[in-house]
């Protein structure tokens, strides 16, 4: 069976799936290639924006983008099913397997002796200028809503102060990706959604890849969109070098450690807490009330590695990820802030995202019989990924329209 297509999409996560359904809506024939085994191995997509680093006007802009209404506006049109909102009306039908958009407060807590607090407040002020209803608290009021805190054991609440930004959203990333994937697979058919397609090469007519060990040649009529996630970095940089393109490179790849701790008591799901550079939240998919609610997720930024060293640094990464510093920070969180006494580690994942300086423009690899573009910004908060994919797909169609 020939797989010749108008568009070929290459990627490992949510972005090519969203782009595929947008292009399908426009009547294009689409082939979707994922060099990885499946779409579930992608580790660069977050359920919420970690707002790292928390500084400057840019964070205030991102806060606005994370408001629940904005996120819902962004993701709802691109999801082929219902999206449940929590907390929502208890009456009526609720699809328990649908991706949930949880509306929670973002609680930024700091110690009074913390010198960087002024900078944090400044971000809140910028956010308020843009319409956010930030509030500041001190002492007990600042700390009591922090996820996982053992309120009965707090002895020094006066050390803390906090800022609350209400009604920010987080989204079930896995459910969202799976929902879009199932829809796209159904629309494209089995043959046109290819996983384990590696290596992928460009030819004058289109693309060539191996599927279950057999070579497949595909003609491309309009173009190829490659959604750049950290896993594709080596391949994309080698393509850029081959086509003599000098793309804007990110500052580096940021490693993230996502710790899952087991709490003795249910974790308050109403807010996502931030202290120092750690983000804490009541972990779980769907309705937080219906889960056991005893897991505390902690996201900790790891080292940033320059992208130029990519090919040789993974050994160095191993040195720095989940290091003594990580354990110190987590144990300080559990001991000093949450007052747990000791912590139980339930799971641990390492994630990777790009860190850009300012803008991160997509770039064109080549423009011959067809055009090949590399789309940046395909990782991070799910809503951002959806936006990136939508813009990339629609712009491409507009650009190539005669």
């Amino acid at each position, binding site marked *: 069976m020939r797989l010749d297509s108008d568009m070929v999409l290459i990627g490992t996560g949510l972005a090519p799936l969203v782009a595929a359904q947008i292009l399908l809506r426009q009547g294009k024939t689409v082939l979707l290639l994922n060099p990885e085994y499946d779409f*579930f191995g992608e580790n660069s997509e977050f359920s919420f924006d970690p707002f790292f680093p928390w500084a400057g006007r840019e964070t205030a802009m991102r806060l606005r983008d994370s408001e629940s209404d904005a996120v819902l506006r962004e993701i709802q049109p691109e999801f082929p099913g219902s999206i449940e909102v929590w907390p929502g009306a208890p009456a009526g039908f609720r699809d328990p397997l649908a991706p949930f958009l949880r509306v929670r407060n973002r609680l930024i807590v700091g110690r009074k002796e913390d010198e960087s607090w002024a900078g944090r407040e400044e971000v809140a002020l910028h956010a308020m200028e843009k319409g956010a209803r930030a509030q500041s608290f001190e002492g007990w009021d600042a700390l009591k809503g922090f996820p996982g805190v053992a309120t009965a054991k707090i002895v020094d609440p006066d050390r803390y102060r906090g800022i609350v930004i209400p009604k920010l959203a987080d989204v079930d990333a896995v459910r969202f990706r799976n929902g879009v994937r199932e829809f796209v697979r159904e629309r494209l058919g089995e043959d046109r959604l290819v996983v384990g397609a590696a290596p992928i090469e460009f030819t004058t007519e289109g693309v060539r890849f191996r599927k279950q060990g057999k070579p497949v040649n595909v003609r491309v009529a309009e173009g190829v969109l490659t959604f750049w996630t950290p896993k594709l970095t080596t391949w994309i940089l080698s393509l850029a070098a081959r086509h003599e393109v000098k793309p804007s490179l990110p500052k580096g790849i940021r490693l993230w450690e996502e710790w899952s701790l087991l709490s003795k008591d249910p974790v308050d799901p109403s807010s996502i807490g931030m202290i120092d550079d750690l983000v804490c939240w009541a972990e779980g998919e769907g309705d937080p009330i219906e889960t056991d609610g005893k897991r505390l997720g902690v996201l900790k930024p790891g080292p940033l590695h320059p992208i130029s060293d990519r090919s040789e640094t*993974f050994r160095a990464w191993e040195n720095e990820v989940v290091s*003594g510093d990580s*354990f110190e920070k987590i*144990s300080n969180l559990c*001991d000093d802030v949450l007052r747990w006494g000791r912590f139980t580690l339930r799971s641990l*994942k390492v994630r990777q995202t790009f860190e850009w300086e300012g803008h991160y423009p997509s770039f064109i690899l080549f423009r011959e019989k067809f055009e090949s573009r590399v789309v940046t910004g395909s990782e991070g908060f799910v809503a951002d990924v959806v936006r990136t994919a939508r813009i990339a797909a629609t712009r491409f169609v507009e650009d190539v329209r005669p």
Partner: protein
Amino acid sequence: MIRNFHSTRFDVAIVAGPRLPEWPTVGVRELSSLVSKFGLEAGWVGGEGLFAKGVLPADGSGGLALVEDAQGRAHRIQARAVVRFVLPDETPSPFEGSSHPSLLLGSTATKLVDDRAFVWNEPVSILGSGNRALRFARGLLERGCPEVSVIEPFAAWDGKRYAGWEVERRRFEILGGRIIEAIPVSFQKVGSAIGEFRVRDQRGVRVIEAAKIVSFGPFSPTEGFKEYPPGSLLFEIEQTAPAARAGDPEGWMLEEERARVLAARIAKALVPELGSSRDEIEAILRRSRSRMKRMGRYLEEPFELAFTGKWTAGAVLKNVKSFSGVPKRAHFEKPIASVECFETIGCDLCERACPTDAIRLDRLRSRKGDEPPRSILEETACISCGLCVQACPSATPVMVHEPEGRSMGKVVFSWREADEPPEAGSFLTLLNRKGDALGTGRVLGHRPPDRPSETPAGLVLFSEFLVEVEVPTHLVWEARGVRRPRAHASAVDNEFLRQNAREFLPDRVEISWNGERRFVRNGIPISTAFFETGYQRSSDRLLCEDGSCGLCEVEVDGLKQLACQTMVRKGMAIKSVRDEAASDDLCPCLGIQESAFLERVEQGNLLSVDAALESTGLGSGRCHGQLCVGPAKRCLERAGLDPNEVRGHLDWRFPWSDWKIDPGKLQ
């Protein structure tokens, strides 16, 4: 600063997965010594006081193992290749009642037998017919268990033949066990002890009485070791070897050979300039693959016994008599070993035990082309010591004496029953190779084997006594087992009495269980005490060495503790912390049913186990997937998912068990 945080780097990290009963086993030693030989640095993580908590796959290949020591200190171990040893999957596919507390996993049951935690004097059913299952089943019969049925649910892939080692099966059947090819349907307790185990075979549903079901597997063909994803140098290998070679010679040898192959693969991947070592590596690979192939040959060429009524069919008997392991002439003069081990298997314990080199299994193995096979048994060299009879885990060899022109001959058996051997002059029932009674034989006497002045090193004898039985000459080649006459119940009684007259009786202490007084042994894990007192909980099913499942939580004197990790002491008050309702769910922790799981997989056309697990949440419950991932893989295989993908999945998710750290210790 954290003072107690240690970071170490190895080329190859060999880590123990959860619940391993032995560490290190032969595979660990073989793997580390071989990779060291090629200049790689290998490190072991496991054993007492050192718990691998999981592996974070690195970007590319290798990974980072996080380890906790007995003092609660954290260690991070970087490795270019990681090999994890795991237990073979023993969890059965869900059926009605599969989470009943009476269903034990094989590893749990083995521990309870070793610990004599309760008396196995009720009928037992065993799921799976692998060698370990058959050996366990035979052990129960020898200990006086009245009825043991082995249920093989996957006859489709010739599970019975795979269990292979036909001698093991024969031994089990000689003792009165039965093997049934059937699929479990339901289990239901109908009395305080006995339950009804319904299975479906070719003729329909049949009911088997069973007090306990022990699940051993294997429930699907296993490759032994695997890498996932390919090229990641993250390997998983099954621990099939026990502490001592004699415990499971085939499993020992399999693990040893697999470890060699793995070591060669790792060396090829990690050593850039192999030079002359390349030939050595290739030789190791060739040799090990050839040995494994040879061990597997009996899967293809089983020696099937055929009977005419109780009697071995003429053609088969002719084959038996012509087999090179049995005597041809010398047994007319005196008792001579008859090594009736017809398959080429990995075990060579009889060969090692023989003080005169009369037995050499490699004579048969080394034949090539048209070269006539040389005899396994050098009958003229046999000194009738009986060591081979006692050294065989399956009691396969016997000694036969068939005086020419006489009506009575003699067969010497290994006495493996739990009670004392019969006295001279008493009578025993003679059994054929499938356990049918042939008649009676008079005991001429019993004796220990004749140990030569130089006992072979490492020799393990499975019994202290040889029993010499006078047998009619026409039964010398038929009688291959003995048992006390049915009317004589002392075998059962002795075992029962022996277990109940435990020397530890004086050490019993009083505890309170949900407000009731109980007397239990002092110093044993609470979980074992539950088994011993007859209070079984499905949450104790895994009976972990390391508390890795976290299921068996109880409240001890007001504090939550794991029952498997907390020792009994006088006066402790134990309370249950959750209901012990049994479920038939694929994932008992999260309540995910098989049908819902498969429906989700089918709807989503999920192509890998990772996708299926991520999408359904399976494996993220309290037991960390130890109860559900194995059955889920089989469900996926049945659902038509690519078996290679399914088998390729390794659970590298972190951690394998909860990790409790006192922040104070990190400061």
